[in-house]
Structures are given as C-alpha cells and as structure tokens.
C-alpha cells in the first residue's frame, strides 16, 4: 500500500518470484515429461531436466493419429464460438437497447450458465440419443453454442451499453434500417469487446471435458477426452498424457498471452472492468 525501497522491495520481489515458481512448477513438469525418453520418465529418483529435448513422444501422437483430436477440438470450439458470438451479440443488443424481456429474462439467461454441466448434459444426452446426435459434430456444436450463449449475451450487453446512442440515432436519421445500424454502427464499435468475448467462449469450449466425454464415442473425440484414454494403458502412457496435454494447452497459452488486457473482465463475467 506504500512504495517501499531497498530491503522491503527485495523481500517482496523474492516472495513474488517464489509464488510464481510454485504456480509454474506443475506446468514445467508436464512440459518436461513430454520431452523425456521412457527411461527418463521412469527414472528413480525423478529427473528434473531431460538430457535432450527429443520430440519422439509427439511423433507417436501424429503417427497414431491421436493428434487428430486437437483438430476436433479446434473445429468444435471455433464453430460454436462463431455461432454463439453472432447470436449472442444480437440478443445482447436487443436486451441492452430495448430492455427486451426485462430483468427476469436477463437473469434467466445468466442463470443458465450456472447450472452444473452434469445436470445439463444428462437431459441433453437423452434427447441426442432420440435424435441420433451422439458422437456428431453438430451435436456438440449446438451444445457448446447453447452453453456459451448466456456468457456472450451477458458480456456483450455490457459492451453494447457503452456505445454512444447518438451514433445510432444519426445513422437512423440518415435512413439506415435497424439491421444496418446494428451491422454498420454497433458491430464496429464493440469489435474489441466482441473479440475478447469470443476468445473466452473459445477457451470454455476448448477446455471442456464432461460434455465431450459423454457425447463422443469415436468420431468427435476431443483432446481432453483423449488424454484420459491413456490412463492405465501401456507403459508409455505418461509420455502420451504429457505430450497430448501440451499439444492442447500451448495454443491457449498463446491466446491468453496476447489478450492480457481483456483477462480480468472476461473471467469475472464483466464484473471487474480491469
């Protein structure tokens, strides 16, 4: 609460670095296992630094076709993200500008987000069995879209409210239709927020395990489900768990690193402007 110098600062810096190392260590360990040879993985006592950064564990995943599950994750997460952001922003605009549905509709929307996934997916599974949608791309895409819509609506409502009303009125006076106002005036102004919201939507779908576990069999297996397939398998299962996990985690790290400034607003459902 007060800028201190010398000894105090050094002490804080040491504590901060120690804390950061603690939170990074599991990630470090996971990445290192993915480069280790089987001998190094099952060395006792454990080896902290592999002798060489060999990529054999990754090569196996590509050779067996397991790496394909990352592609599945990409298809599902990106398609559902596009759907959820477009439909969600439309709804958010209506709620923010016209108060459509009132307070109860807005609260109902966000409460959908907070129901436990297991309680959502069980009924959905029964429905999908009837429809023949289990283990299909569109089945999971619809589910991810529905699951992410409340989040998008909630976030975009905040961004849309920040759009100056005069801009829209001027466009209406100039003879634009409502749809043109939304497309040509509102969308460009909220583009930053839209982009940030889309990234979080993508991360939610990308990181999901439960929905994919229940609604995939062999065709649309995603990378988190694939990782759990390795448990208790052959002797090289540690290498596969680590390499597969890194393949799926690295893209997210890159995305988050480029989005630092949206992080706080995104994960707090817009509660903290950040």
């Amino acid at each position, binding site marked *: 609460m007060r800028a201190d110098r010398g000894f105090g600062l050094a002490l804080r810096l040491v504590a901060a670095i120690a804390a950061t190392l603690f939170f990074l260590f599991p990630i470090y360990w*996971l990445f290192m296992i993915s480069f280790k040879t089987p001998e190094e993985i099952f060395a*006792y006592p454990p080896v902290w630094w592999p002798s060489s950064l060999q990529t054999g564990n990754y090569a196996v995943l590509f050779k067996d076709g397991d790496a394909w599950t990352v592609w599945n994750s990409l298809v599902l997460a990106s398609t559902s993200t596009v759907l959820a952001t477009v439909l969600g922003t439309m709804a958010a605009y209506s709620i923010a500008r016209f108060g459509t549905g009132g307070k109860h509709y807005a609260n109902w929307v966000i409460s959908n987000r907070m129901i436990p996934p297991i309680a959502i997916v069980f009924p959905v599974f029964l429905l999908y069995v009837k429809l023949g949608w289990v283990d299909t791309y569109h089945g999971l895409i619809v589910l991810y879209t*529905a699951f992410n819509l409340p989040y998008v609506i909630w*976030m975009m409502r905040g961004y849309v409210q920040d759009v100056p009303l005069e801009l829209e009125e001027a466009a209406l006076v100039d003879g634009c239709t409502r749809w043109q106002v939304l497309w040509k005036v509102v969308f460009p102004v909220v583009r930053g927020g839209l982009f940030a919201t889309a990234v979080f939507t993508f991360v939610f779908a990308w990181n999901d395990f439960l929905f994919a576990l229940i609604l995939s069999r062999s065709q649309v297996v995603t990378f988190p489900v694939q990782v759990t397939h390795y448990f208790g398998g052959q002797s090289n299962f540690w290498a596969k*768990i680590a390499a597969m996990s890194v393949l799926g985690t690295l893209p997210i790290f890159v995305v988050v690193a480029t989005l630092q400034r949206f992080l706080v607003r995104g994960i707090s459902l817009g509660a903290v402007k950040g």
Partner: protein
Amino acid sequence: MAAAVEAAGRRHEPAAVPWTERHFRWLLVAPATFVILLVGLFPFVYTLIVSFQNITMLEEDTSFQGLANYARLFSDQRFWEAIGHTLLFLAVALPAELLLGFLLALLFLDKMPGRQVLIALLVLPVVISPIIAGATWRLLFDNRFGPINQILSWIAGEPVVILWVNNPSFVYPAILLAEIWQWTPFMFLLLWAALNEVDRSQLESAEIDGASWLQRLWWIVLPAIRPVVVIALLIRGLDLFRLFDVVWGLTRGGPGTMTETVSIYTYVLGFQQFETSYAAAMALVIIVLLSVVVMAALDRVAIGR
C-alpha cells in the same frame, strides 16, 4: 367517416415499415433463446417425465412410478455422502483460494521490477483445462516417479513414500492442493484488479491521520473491494459445487467412493450403471436447488452492473 379514415391510416402506417423492422427486437433475441431452450427446456421436460418412470439398462419400464425415484434419493446414503464430499471441497478450497489470492494481490500491488511478466505467468493455471490439471497433478503425485515425494524426501532427510491418490488420509489434501493451485490465480487476478481501483488519496489521508496498516485495510480497502469479493465467491462457489474434472483426473472418485462428488456420482449412475430414471431425478434435484440459489444470489448482486 373521419374515424374510418383515421383507422385506415393507422393500419396503413405500420405496413409501410417492413415486418423485419417492426419486430426487430424480438427477431434479435429469438435465435439465441431458441438454442438455449433447445438444450435447456425440451430435455428438461423429457427428463422430468423419465424421472417418474423406471428406466434402467436392463429394462425400458416406462410405467409411471410416482415419486419412487425421489424417495430413493432421500434414503440413498451414497448421494448424501457425495453432497458431503462436495461441500467439504467447497468449505476448504473456497476460503483458501480467497485468502491466498488476496495475499498474492497485496504482494503484487505495488510496483516492482518484472511485475507484469510475473503476473502473466502466475495466471496460466487458470486457463488450463481442469482435466489436464488433474492429469498433471496425478503425474506430480506419483509415489515413485513424481517430484512431490522426492521433495518431501529432501526435507525429511529420508525416503518418503506417500501413496497420495490411494491413501484415504492423503487423497483429500492431494485433490485440494490441485484445486487450490489452479484457482488461486483466478481469485488473485480479480482481487488485484479491484485493489488497483481503491482510492489512493483516501488511503493517504487516513495514513496522515495516523490510521495503522490494519485499520486502513479493514475500514477502507475491504469495503471498497467487497462487491468484487462477493462475485468472485459466487462464481467459484458454483464452480466448486459442480466439481468434476480435477477429481476425475486424479482419483475418479476413489479410493472406493471416498472422493465422489455430486457430479461424479450422477455421472456414474447415469453413464456407467445406466440407472437412467434415477439419475434423471438426481439431475433435476440439482437443477432446481441450484436455480433457486442462483436466482436469489443474482437478485442481491448485480454482476457487471
């Protein structure tokens, strides 16, 4: 006569505006509402019906059983134990994450060299898929090839062999450590952002007036960040109530059913034992309970407003 002209005019006037314009606001919310209802309402109604029947893997008995499944829920010891386990995780992890996150936020509040880089690295656990986090900790906790027992051996000065995920006395600390590791940075990030918004001039004048550090914390800082704390607790509390991934990655609810959460038990019932009707009843009870809690909470805190 004049009234007829007026009525015709009124009827004529909206027709000049295309219907896509007139119903603009409803057309905007319609697709989103439809999708949410598609995976929300229709399966919900269907599940409600199933929960009154007696469908299992062995028989498709669609005769109505009344409230039999709900009655069974109340006498199902494993269900209540699962609720107990879930609440135990919640009761330990939530305050721990809040406290540790707050301490970290205080630590990083003032400027220091490399602060932004450290914060960027510190929050990485939050964006890892929770099932991957569980798998990672399973590798860390391995009794022979994991580094945790190795580090403990260094500290103890003799070989330490703890079977973290198999030993009933150690399995809870193991899961809680993984859970707290992943989500403390979440609390940290929100609280850090909130602390940065606290009015500095107010703090300075309080300091000039002789208020101690603790007094300033209690009377100025905590009231200022209270709304953010409430929302962070709400988000994390609901997340912890549906805890599944980390536990699944580490123990799959074991040893036995010792660490089984509500979500895991429902999954096991519905998708491994195929007690369809019974699992449906359980899912419904969870939905109704949580909806009541969420709606009540939302009326009190206005997220994002």
